[in-house]
Structure formats: structure tokens, C-alpha cells
């Protein structure tokens, strides 16, 4: 089977992309597999200036999932371009994940990345629940979402713009529509669900930030429902994610209409999981007699 998928102007070798924040800058996983064999890698969120992130503890394990409140710690765009990007092997499809606190700064980041040949697409994170300014408030208000997407689109040159949606809204279709109307080439969803875990003995939250973002298998049903809703309501390619830990999970997202998927927490369960998944997805698709992803995508019977 030919695993290739086309998302507008972006072509991927296969539908498996690693999710932002769970795969570092890719370099951390080079001992565990060949990055260029993946559909793509989505980088940890990058901002104009370096960010220190939130105090410890920042992560907590929950049944079938985890909470994180990293707070977008990153080296900043300048250091990333100098010290990380050159070491990512050629032939790897690299998606930059952008975070800023104003639409102007989002635009500035887009302009910087638009000059980089090695960056295949831009994913705009308007959905991080762990930062005070910017973050999820952009992803909860259609006007603000639209302002950010417009600012990025204007300066992204020929790079496709993916807008990453938050599940922490009443109706995800409203924001999806606003993003597409403002020029988004694709949508990706879902980011983490706002959640909490507490310790009855210390009487403290398990996270210094008190609340964090829930990810992992626990959120898959929510993610699948939201991808299903968004695919019905917009006309751009959708990248689905949330709790994917097997080849079956990948096919479920494609069945409801996703063009590609991202795997997040699964990368922590075993560092070569994304690489193994590419092969497992191929084997499963072939065993089901699927000839191409175009044939299978969105064929859910309702």
C-alpha cells in the first residue's frame, strides 16, 4: 500500500506525525529511530523569546492519561534555528509549532519560519491551557482566533498554516469555522483538556500550577467526537490527535475523516513507539484491504 497522504500542498510519507511537546526537537529520539521515516515531526511550541516554563511539579500521571503544566518552556526561535534545526536530518518533514501572546508576535514568528527551507508547515497553537496570556483564550474566542490566524497567514509566505484547536470550548465548530474563514489551510485537534489531580494527604494539587492539560488514552473518545464534528463542518484537511496508542486508533481517526494523525503521550510510553506505529499502521491497513488513504478516509457509516 502507498502510505502517502496529501494535505493540500503538504505531502506526507505516511499519516503518522509526532505531536508537539511530546517529541522535543526530534533530536532526543534519533537514538530510537529514523526521523525521516515518520510522516512528520511537530516540534515543541516555540516562541520569539526563550521561556522558562512553570514551576515543578509540572506533570502527574492519572488513570489512562497524564496532566501537564509545562508552561511552554522552550529555547526561543533564535537558539532553535541555530542549535536545533540544523541537526534534524534532511528528508524529515518538520512542522513548527508557534506560540505567542499577541497576533503581531505570531505574525513575526511566521515570518521567521517562512524563510526556513527545512520547515514544511506551521502549526499555530491557540490552545495551550497552561499559560496565562495568549494560550487558550485565543482558541476560545472566534474573533481572537481569527485575528491570530490572519496575522500568521499574512506573513507565512508559501508555508501551509495549520491551526491547532482547543477542546476546552462549548462548540469546537465555531472556532474551526473562524480559523478557516481567516485563512487556515488545515486544522489540527485536539490539544489537552483542562484537568486537575489532588493529593488528599498533603492537601495540595499534584501540579504547582494547580490545573494542567489532560492527554493520553483517557481523552480519545472526546478527540474522536470533536474530529468527527469538525470534519463535517469545514472543508480543509484535518489532523486528528488525542490518546492514540495503536494502529487501530490511527485508523479510527482516519475513518471519521482525518487526513493524518499526531501521536503525543504514546511517545513517552516507549521512545520508539512512533517509528513502530508507522509500520503497524501499514500492516493493519493492508490486512483490511485498504488500497489508499483516500479510499478509506471519512467512510464512517452513520
Amino acid at each position, binding site marked *: 500500500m502507498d502510505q502517502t497522504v496529501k494535505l493540500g500542498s503538504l505531502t506526507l510519507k505516511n499519516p503518522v506525525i509526532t505531536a508537539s511537546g511530546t517529541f522535543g526537537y526530534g533530536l532526543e529520539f534519533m537514538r530510537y529511530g529514523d526521523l525521516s521515516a515518520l510522516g512528520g515531526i511537530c516540534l515543541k511550541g516555540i516562541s520569539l523569546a526563550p521561556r522558562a516554563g512553570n514551576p515543578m511539579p509540572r506533570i502527574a500521571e492519572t488513570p489512562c*492519561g497524564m496532566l501537564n503544566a509545562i508552561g511552554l518552556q522552550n529555547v526561543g526561535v533564535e537558539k532553535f534555528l541555530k542549535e536545533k534545526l540544523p541537526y534534524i536530518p534532511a528528508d524529515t518533514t518538520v512542522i513548527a509549532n508557534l506560540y505567542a501572546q499577541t497576533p503581531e508576535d505570531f505574525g513575526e514568528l511566521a515570518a521567521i519560519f517562512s524563510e526556513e527551507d527545512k520547515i514544511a508547515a506551521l502549526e499555530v497553537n491557540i490552545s495551550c491551557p497552561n499559560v496565562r496570556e495568549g494560550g487558550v483564550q485565543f482558541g476560545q474566542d472566534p474573533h481572537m482566533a481569527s485575528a491570530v490566524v490572519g496575522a500568521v497567514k499574512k506573513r507565512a509566505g508559501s508555508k501551509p498554516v495549520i491551526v491547532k484547536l482547543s477542546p476546552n470550548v462549548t462548540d469546537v465548530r465555531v472556532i474551526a469555522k473562524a480559523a478557516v474563514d481567516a485563512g487556515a489551510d488545515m486544522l489540527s485537534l485536539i490539544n489537552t483538556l483542562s484537568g486537575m489531580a489532588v493529593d488528599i494527604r498533603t492537601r495540595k494539587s499534584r501540579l504547582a500550577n494547580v490545573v494542567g492539560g489532560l492527554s493520553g488514552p483517557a481523552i480519545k473518545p472526546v478527540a474522536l467526537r470533536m474530529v468527527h464534528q469538525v470534519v463535517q463542518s469545514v472543508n480543509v484537511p484535518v489532523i486528528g490527535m488525542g490518546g492514540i496508542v495503536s494502529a487501530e486508533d490511527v485508523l479510527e481517526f482516519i475513518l471519521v475523516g482525518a487526513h493524518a494523525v499526531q501521536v503525543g503521550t504514546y511517545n513517552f510510553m516507549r521512545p520508539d513507539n512512533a517509528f513502530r506505529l508507522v509500520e503497524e499502521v501499514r500492516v493493519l491497513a493492508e490486512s483490511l484491504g485498504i488500497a489508499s488513504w483516500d479510499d478509506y478516509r471519512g467512510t464512517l457509516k452513520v
Partner: protein
Amino acid sequence: MIDSQTPCRDLEVISCTPAKDPSLVDLVLSAPGWTCKPGQFVMIRPAHWGAELVWPRPFSVCDVSDQGLRIIFQTVGRGTRRLAELVSGQKVTVWGPLGRWFRIDEARPNLILAGGVGIAPFVMLARREKTDNLSMLFGHRLDLEHYPYAEIADRIKSEAMQQKTMADIAEFETVLSERIKALAGVGQVLACGPEPMLKVVRKYCLLHGTDGQVSLENRMACGVGACLGCVGKTVAGDYVQSCVHGPVFDVREIDLGD
């Protein structure tokens, strides 16, 4: 043919034996001769865990030899309780060896300060590095026979102190302080144990100007530097991943929040 240094693979459980006190477990996995340094760790996750526990668990390598990869762990929560149920023949996914190790200074005295299960990484060190410049002070809560103390004490000069009461803990702190002071300018300490103990070690190292290294046990999700969940704070105020920049840090480099 599996490369013996393949960084992630499934190893078979050779034995999983509770110590006399069942809260301590001695786990041996099939591992054809890794090169690994004392203080380095591995991430381990039983192959059959399914989705309920999403993280692997980090453990110091206690020893690695032709017999296999040995880990000694304390059961404290959901993960370690389930690890304790492993039986021989089951498969465990392991990646490592990871992180920075204890750096021995062969020309000067090196004093190991171990607390409880923090003794684990020093078993390999004592076996390999038999040098006249190595000694150990061990603080423990359970009776001595539960720990691999004798394995170390047979090879290097060792003393042990049990802490059962608050007074015992206070006395241990006094002895720690004296030993650290005695090494000022002439040697170094290597410490692994519960965080309150590491804070005490760091405090006296800084007070007396003694060189020291401490191993941190921060919560980890990936072990490879990607999740940013395990960070420690440097004295300069930066967050650094303890899985790749540590877990062993110089006492002058890391801020333990005291």
C-alpha cells in the same frame, strides 16, 4: 541479532525477589553486557501494562553484568506495586542507560552518602571501582539486612546508622555534617537518597566548601529530554531536564529549594 547497546528493547525478567521486608524488591532482567556508569538510570515499563499506567518508571542501575541488569526498588505507589508482581519470563520494556553519572576522583577521598534505597547505584560502583579512596556512610530506616549493604561493605570501608526516631535523624544530620566538613578541600561526597537528606548534604557542602554530587529523583515521563516534566532549577535560575543534565548534579549547580 540484537545489538547489546540497542537503547530500547524488551528484556526478560530473570528474577523478581522481595527482600526480607517486602517493600524492597530486587529485580534482575536479562541484559547482555551494557556499558553503564554508576548513577545512570533506565526507564522501565512492563510490556503488558496496557494503557492504564502511561509512564514508564525510572530506576538507578544497581548493577549490570553477565548475570543481567539489576534494579532494587521500593514499592511506594501504583507503578512499583505492579512491578513487584513481575515473575520470571515476563517481558519488560527498558531504555537506557540514561543520564549523567557519579564522577569519581581517584586521586582524592570519595565518600558515598546513601540513604535508604538510595544505596542502589553504589553496588556497581563498589564492585568495579575498588579503590582505597572510596568509603560509605549509609543511613537507613529498615534493618540493615534488607539492603544490599553487605555487598558494598565487603569491598569498601562502610558505616551504617539506623534512623527510627526524630532523634536518630538529628544525629544522622550531625554525623553527615562532620563527615562533609572533614572532606572540605581534600575530597568529595557522592549522595543519593531521599530529598530531605540531599538538601542537608547540599547545605553542609556549601557551608564547608566541600565538593559534592547529588542524584535527584524527579518525576519523569520520557527519560530522554523531551517532555520537560523532570526539570530541576539551577542556581542561575534556569530549568534543566534532570534526565539528561542529571540525575547527578554538582551541589553548586543545582537549587534544591532550601
